[in-house]
């Protein structure tokens, strides 16, 4: 910086400085106390305390002082705390025990915490303390490596908008109360969970839902707003005593669905029981459809056909073949694709893109068949797709 530049430095008013500080990780913010005596305690009024992975490993490398640092920051901090996050890598939290996290949570509840992110591995799943379940200021809750076992009188989080659970154990009863007792919930993400097998969703404001893991049954009861649903079922065993019309039940309750991902195990789930030729009520809002199909399973194909026939407004369609089926031979079932897309009276009009995501070893005849999907519509474009799934949904 030249002398001239130094002279015309514009001084930013305090409220703008605070705004900048709120975008910095806590480690950076705390370091500003060294700038001058005026800055020494400025950080203590910052409402967001974020100990991200970089920060935690930096603190942990300093002779296991992490515990002391977080205690110190919470003690010196002045004012309300909007957000508290700890994200650690494995082994960084050696010196931290569940008693310490319990103490921090108790403190945060008194500060009316709104956003809580706990992504910590302390050598075992951390048991969420009961006091957190009475914290009604929570808007966003993200828990990883935790056991969620609320007291029996727990009725849900009345203000909660977003819930993310990854690698958590939750009892069936607790899960039901979490979902059905949080009426403002808009976003739900579940990844690798255990302790419950039935997912029953009664959430009038839910807009986004994503599952990755194993469950036996799923039902939507009161979800008029749900626009995006991604089902990444990792395993499904057809149970004879299960629901007999999964497909009908599911789509009947998702009138606003715009975007969905259905993996092959979830297709299997939808295929168990009655599969009609068309849904009684078409999915008028469905625009983006990502399907992972086992082309050797006729029942799955029939579900896909039913969905396509019932979705007149598809703009983006992606088809993917699961990796495990790399040696799959093309069966007669695969040919129904050609029929579907080449018939003059074809019900499906793809307006923007059909995306074919090739697997390394996918059967070349199958690829040829898929590429011939170009016939689907003059506007449709078939592309070989190498990007990630998330890119597909955002593009």
């Amino acid at each position, binding site marked *: 910086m030249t002398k001239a530049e*130094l002279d015309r430095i514009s001084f930013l008013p305090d409220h703008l400085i605070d705004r900048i500080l709120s*975008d910095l990780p806590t480690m950076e913010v705390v370091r500003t106390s060294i700038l001058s005596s005026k800055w020494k305690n400025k950080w203590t009024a910052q409402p967001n305390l974020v100990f991200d992975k970089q920060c935690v490993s930096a603190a942990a490398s300093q002779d296991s002082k992490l515990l002391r640092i977080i205690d110190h920051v919470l003690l010196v901090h002045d004012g309300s705390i909007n957000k508290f996050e700890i994200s650690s890598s494995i082994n960084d939290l050696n010196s931290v025990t569940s008693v310490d996290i319990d103490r921090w949570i108790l403190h945060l509840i008194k500060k009316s915490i709104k956003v809580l992110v706990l992504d910590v591995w302390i050598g075992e799943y951390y048991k969420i303390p009961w006091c957190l379940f009475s914290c009604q200021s929570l808007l966003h809750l993200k828990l990883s490596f935790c056991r969620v076992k609320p007291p029996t009188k727990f009725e849900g989080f009345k203000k909660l908008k977003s819930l993310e659970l990854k690698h958590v154990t939750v009892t069936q009863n607790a899960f039901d109360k979490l979902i059905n007792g949080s009426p403002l919930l808009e976003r739900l993400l579940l990844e690798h969970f255990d302790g419950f097998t039935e997912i029953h969703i009664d959430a009038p404001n839910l807009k986004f839902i994503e599952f990755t893991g194993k469950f036996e049954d799923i039902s939507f009861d009161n979800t008029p707003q749900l626009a995006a649903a991604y089902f990444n079922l990792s395993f499904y065993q057809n149970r004879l005593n299960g629901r007999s019309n999964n497909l009908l039940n599911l789509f009947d309750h998702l009138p606003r669905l715009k975007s969905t991902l259905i993996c092959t195990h979830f297709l299997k789930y939808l295929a168990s029981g009655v599969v009609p030729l068309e849904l009684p009520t078409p999915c008028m809002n469905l625009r983006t459809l990502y399907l992972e199909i086992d082309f050797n399973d006729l029942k799955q194909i029939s579900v896909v056909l039913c969905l396509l026939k019932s979705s007149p407004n598809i703009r983006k369609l992606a088809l993917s073949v699961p990796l495990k089926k790399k040696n799959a031979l093309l069966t007669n079932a695969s040919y129904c694709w050609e029929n579907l897309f080449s018939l003059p009276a074809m019900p499906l009009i793809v307006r923007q893109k059909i995306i074919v995501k090739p697997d390394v070893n996918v059967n070349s005849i199958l690829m040829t068949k898929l590429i011939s999907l170009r016939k689907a519509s003059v506007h449709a474009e078939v592309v070989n797709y190498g990007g990630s799934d998330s890119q597909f949904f955002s593009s």
Partner: protein
Amino acid sequence: MAEEVSSQMNSLSISETNPSSSATISLVSGDDIVFKVEPTIAKEMETVQSFIDETDGKITTIPLPNISSHDLPYVIEYCEKSIAGKITKEFEAEFVKKLNNEEVKELFLAANYLNIKKLLDFLSQVIADRIANKSVEYVRRYFGIENDFTPEEEAKLREELAWTFTGVDPDDEDEN
């Protein structure tokens, strides 16, 4: 400064005869350069819009004494992209590439004055990124802060805050 503003206000009254809602809005920079923009752009600038609303749309020339003719085109460009829904990561990266530290701060002040929330959020993050992991000396210069600690006091603080210095630039490598 106050006199300059009021004299501009007087000359504004002449243009009051054109209250049509589709008329372009004239933004007058602090150094008296006029920028004509669509009313939709003005809507992005809350300060400008509330000025227009208060006068029932009769006044379409708005003096912006705190904003220079150097900064205003950047603000307008960002608002145009915002309306078109074309604020992408690529656009934002290109947008800040052109700006030095001082210009970013000036635009940040302009966004604050005009009350453009998206631009404020964006520039706040840009400044945060530009000072992250930078040495104490660099940040002092960035904000124009005078160090009033004695060397002993500073050394003691540095020791207490040692954990916050992981990955931070050393003091002598921060010219630019």
